[in-house]
């Protein structure tokens, strides 16, 4: 068995992992940007509570988060039942559920760097935008957001990496179903469950590391590009 020849089930797990991580990121990133902006630039009642909720998945063991998701979004859970009855959307034991778990677990990691970046954008530039007639939302999209891009990228890469490696919440929430929810991390776990699985586990580790490495390189290149767009200096 050649080390660099992926088996069909490895391919499956790899593609599934990329799909899950990508969808998790795609869905949670906009929400994270919004939450980060609210946390950074506004004071509202419940500010502290939102902040704490965002961080909760980090503090709790993933199994608990997965269990909470199961209780909420499971077939019989209040949210799950509602979504399934109203929109026909079901997260239970499907890759969408894996993406949900990955997204929730990655959320705090995405929010924090973005929030820091928003806080670092000089409000004077937003004032300048407003004095030129831009409404708050326009100023946000034309000034604040572009200037916070390095942080958004940083948050995204942390979140993507986390989503790729998420294990505990995923296996608890959507179980370990091949082709549906068995991502690389879960396949790796499965491999370790038999004595003969060491080689398979090693191969899977390499695959995961390789993908992560590729994603990081891409993000570094993008970050460098972003920085050079700023002309290497502040105005």
């Amino acid at each position, binding site marked *: 068995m050649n080390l660099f020849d992926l088996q069909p089930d490895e391919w499956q797990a790899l593609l599934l992992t990329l799909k899950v991580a990508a969808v998790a990121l795609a869905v949670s990133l906009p929400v994270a940007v919004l939450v980060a902006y609210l946390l950074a630039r506004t004071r509202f009642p419940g500010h502290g509570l939102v902040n704490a909720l965002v961080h909760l998945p980090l503090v709790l063991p993933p199994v608990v988060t997965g269990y909470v998701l199961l209780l909420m979004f499971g077939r019989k859970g209040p949210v799950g039942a509602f979504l399934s009855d109203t929109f026909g959307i079901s997260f*239970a034991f499907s890759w969408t559920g894996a993406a949900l778990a990955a997204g929730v677990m990655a959320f705090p990691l995405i929010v924090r760097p973005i929030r820091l970046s928003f806080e670092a954008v000089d409000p004077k530039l937003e004032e300048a935008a407003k004095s030129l007639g831009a409404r708050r939302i326009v100023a946000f999209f034309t000034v604040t957001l572009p200037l916070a891009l390095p942080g958004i990228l940083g948050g995204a890469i942390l979140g993507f990496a986390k989503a790729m490696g998420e294990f505990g919440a995923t296996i608890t929430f959507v179980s*370990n*179903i*091949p082709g549906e929810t068995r991502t690389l991390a879960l396949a790796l776990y499965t491999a370790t*469950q*038999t004595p*003969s699985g060491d080689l398979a586990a090693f191969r899977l580790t390499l695959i995961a590391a390789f993908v992560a490495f590729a994603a990081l390189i891409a993000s570094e290149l993008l970050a460098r590009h972003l920085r050079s767009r700023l002309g290497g200096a502040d105005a």
Partner: protein
Amino acid sequence: ELTVFAAASMREAMERIASEFESETGMRVVFSFAGTGTLARQVEAGAPADLFISADSDWMDYVAENGGVEPASVRQIASNKLVLAGPKESPALGLNAAEIAGFLDGQRLAMADPDTVPAGRYGKAALENLGLWQSVSGQLAPMENVRVALASVARGDTPLGLVYRTDAQIEPNVAILATFPDTSHPEIRYLAAVTEVSSNPAADPFLEFLTGPDAQEILQSLGFVTDKVE
């Protein structure tokens, strides 16, 4: 296509049985392996599983009571033995406090977590039953599952591990130093049942197949005890 939620410790056996089943019936079986507790809660939550195979009777009772599986379909498919595993070529060990303490020599005894893993609960019961708990409970290394405990012994991080016979048998780097008498712990029962949500016509045949001769032979070859199967 049949979906089976099975305790992770059964992986090797289940995959072999499934391929046998597939070649006989043409039905594909898909497994989701995880800890018994995890799976039990999922089955309770209505997971799209047809069969649930538990490594622990308490969890199966729990699921049956909470409407996860059809209580009438629960059946035992195998049982197991507890052993003490040590480095290869170690001498056999008597199940008494002095010998075990001597062997450990201040290091830890790896076993599945008595608080979380069925294997650990059985192990604890056995140790208590043999009057060994007092002396070793301070020296335990409770692991997430049996495989991790066994690997720890195989690597030499811990000199001794309390594990299932099935696991110890396949691991080439360890030897079985002692086997616990069946009477020292509640019977280690592997139970299978059809879930409430299953409407798959192949569920019953597979359940049947698990207790059939082909499956039992596979289980036996992997070290499971099959003589008590109904």
